[in-house]
């Protein structure tokens, strides 16, 4: 044994299992990218998105334009914000089913308060605070009482939806000039292209989320919890705080999405955004985030939203699908996406 101590230094070969040569071929590098659990799915989604967009352009008149692409952002800015919040939650291995109902609730709060003459400057922060508090309660329920996220957020969903009806059973219009202005304003980008203020807000939210997840300790702890909560705990990471905070963020994002949604529809309606949580989850998953947590990117989720948007755009451009074929078509395109993603990334091991 002692003799070993002065054994010659021996570099261990534990690095890349494929023994990558210094200049690996392009094919191999592509394969490595695709099969990485971290980058594979999101890469595939990006490629497929481009392919679909080009295919749509070839098939439909007027499809291949900058505004059609920008409309994806304009029409889905609230969904992008929702997906951002959902990404945080899913990265920790949780799920948030309440987001759709919280969007509706935010709209109801906004519409009813504005109707009674509140100022938007008070209403919007109030909504964000309230939805964050709801997120906090959900987070505490999940962390302190070990209620499963699916159930805790389902309860929150029922609660939020119920509160919507309590506020009003019918839809309420928003006529507040600030809201109307934000809803109809167009920011020209030159060349007949324009976006809405909502898009800017969504982009800012995305940018902040990217920074938080990538470059802060909190963000890395989010990934750590997804990789193994117990391990994170034993490594001395602030698991409890992070886990609760993630739901606060999701609550906040739902509130923000709710505000954007009211810009979009200029009304509050208790039945609105039913099933939107599934859209957000689907976007996150299509964007390459694993539902079990630990792997994924916010930008992937944005891409996921764009994919859902482009599927819908194609359906309206097609314009001949009956209601049921629309459903079947959406399901089929989703399937094609998921399967391609799976097949292309599954060469591992």
């Amino acid at each position, binding site marked *: 044994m002692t003799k070993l*101590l002065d054994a*010659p230094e*021996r*570099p261990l*070969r534990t690095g890349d*299992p*494929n023994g990558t040569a210094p200049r690996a071929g392009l094919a191999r590098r592509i394969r490595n990218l695709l099969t990485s659990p971290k980058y594979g799915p999101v890469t595939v989604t990006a490629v497929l998105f481009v392919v679909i967009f080009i295919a749509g352009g070839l098939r439909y008149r007027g499809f291949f334009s900058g505004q059609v692409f920008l409309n994806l952002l304009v029409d889905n800015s609230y969904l992008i914000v929702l997906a951002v919040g959902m990404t945080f939650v899913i990265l920790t291995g949780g799920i948030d089913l309440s987001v759709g109902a919280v969007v509706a609730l935010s709209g109801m709060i906004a519409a009813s308060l504005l109707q009674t003459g509140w100022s938007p400057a008070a209403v919007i922060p109030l909504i964000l605070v309230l939805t964050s508090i709801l997120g906090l309660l959900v987070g505490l329920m999940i962390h302190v009482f070990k209620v499963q996220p699916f159930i805790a957020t389902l309860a929150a969903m029922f609660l939020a939806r119920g509160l919507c009806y309590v506020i009003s059973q019918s839809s309420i219009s928003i006529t507040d000039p600030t809201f109307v202005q934000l809803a109809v304003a167009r920011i020209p980008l030159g060349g007949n292209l324009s976006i809405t203020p909502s898009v800017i807000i969504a982009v800012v939210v995305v940018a902040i989320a990217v920074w938080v997840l990538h*470059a802060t300790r909190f963000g890395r702890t989010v990934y750590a919890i997804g990789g193994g909560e117990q391990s994170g705990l*034993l490594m001395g990471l602030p698991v409890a705080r992070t886990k609760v905070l993630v739901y606060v963020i999701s609550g906040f994002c739902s509130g923000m999405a709710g505000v954007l949604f009211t810009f979009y529809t200029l009304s509050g309606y208790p039945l609105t955004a039913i099933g939107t949580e599934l859209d957000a989850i689907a976007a996150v998953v299509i964007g390459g985030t694993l539902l079990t947590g630990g792997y994924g990117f916010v930008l992937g989720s944005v891409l996921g939203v764009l994919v859902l948007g482009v599927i819908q755009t194609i359906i309206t451009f097609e314009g001949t699908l009956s209601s049921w074929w629309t459903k079947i078509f959406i399901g089929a395109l989703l399937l094609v996406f998921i399967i391609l993603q799976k097949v292309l990334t599954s060469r591992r091991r």
Partner: protein
Amino acid sequence: MTQASVAAPVIEMQGISITFPGVKALDGVDFRMFPGEVHSLMGENGAGKSTLIKALTGVYGIDAGTITLAGEQVSFSGPAQAQASGISTVYQEVNLLPNLSVAENIMLGREPRRFGSIDWRAMRRRAAALLAGLNLDLDPNSLLGDHSLAVQQLVAIARAIDVQAKVLILDEPTSSLDADEVAELFRVIRSLKEQGVAILFVSHFLDQVYEICDRLTVLRNGSLVGEYLVEELLRIDLVQKMIGKELTTLDDLEQRARSAVVDESDAAIFVNAEGLGRRGAINPADLPIAAGEVVGLAGLLGSGRTELARLLGGIDRADQGELAIRGKVTKLRTPRQAISNRIAYSSENRRDEGVVGDLTVRDNIVLALQADRGWFRPIPAKRRDELTQSYIQALNIRPGNPDALVRNLSGGNQQKVLLARWLAIAPRLLILDEPTRGIDIGAKAEIQKLVFNLAENGMSVLFISAELEEVLRLSHRIVVLRDRHVVADLENDGLTVDSLLALIAEGSSDDEVPDAAGGVPIAVPAVPSADRPHDPAASDADPNPTDPTGDPR
């Protein structure tokens, strides 16, 4: 007492008790540690070592007792607090994050920051430096999950020693490590010790304890036996204190192993791998295993032992070469197929690939047997209980409650449950990948004896262990791997740890060719089996032994 006791203890735990439902894991245990000493916590599996550590770092709340750190009474609400107070810990099961990079696993929670953002470059640099300190050449950007368990263990150690801690706790850090890595670790431990860090080192390897530790505390069944200076305690006495009775089996075993080299013949070859390999994992290898033969796999960390074993166990599919079972070429596509060919593979990663934590001991033991029978032919309850009971006794699984959830067993006892599962299917070839990992000395002896007895009854065993002594003690033949190639296939005849080590590490220094008889390194092919003496008894052995346990008692 020595000079160390002159200084005040950095940690003092008094009267610690912890109760889990149905188990009193710790019962009024006292424990203390001094700055600048390496202290070992000794005890059988389930004695309460890990529990004591977790009590100290706040993972478990204590029912009774006090903890003082540097003279002040503390009560940590969790590992984060303990860490902040200067206690750095590597827990027994590797607790890292497979989805993050190696660098992050080392630096998580104390990442270097610039302008409020994590400074990724500085982080990678720091991680690389730390790994280099352990003589580990590893890309800090690679995903942790892509590395073998041993590497993960080293990364966990790197993480722990990076903190400027007053106390460093290592709960079985060496269970998957090779001699080389252990040596590296010890070098680091010594230097930390010189800086006045108190180090708690838990290990079932007595050699290592005697090499590095100054003082040790022995636990038995959750109670304190005593605190001793290592140099004043003979090994034999230590073992006696741990298990509460004398241990003789090991020497006895060694005698028998040396004398009873199994004779083989072509007819008795149970499995024969020819050019079996898998791209990116293991290069084509030849590996014949005769009935009743114990073959040891030796090699460095990452040399491909596990990968080869997984091919034989049907866990991974081979994409090159062929495998003959009893002379018939068979493609193993699933573990299930291997099992129906009576080949059992017991994984080195018992937590992720071995035990089913939330099932009971009973269900875990019968799982493979039942899977082989199919779901619609359930094993009768009575037989199930008998089987479970017999293995609980044979392997001394504690607590001996068949209804206990395996998750709540100590690490070593989980390993025994896993072993019982595989013995229950009456395998003809048992592949044991690090079966003695985290197993106490008494149980280790039991397992070794078991392997030996099984082999005598005609079962083949492929044995992988980082502990070369163990491989040498048990194996009839030893196959050496290096860089995922089989580089030697030797009769265990006059081999020593040193000669084997030289063989394994060869390539870095050519002049240290081993001198042991029969130890000449052979390029690739195995020793032609026809050269071996023929033993009629081996081929006459009952092909389906009904009592696979071979009744070790």
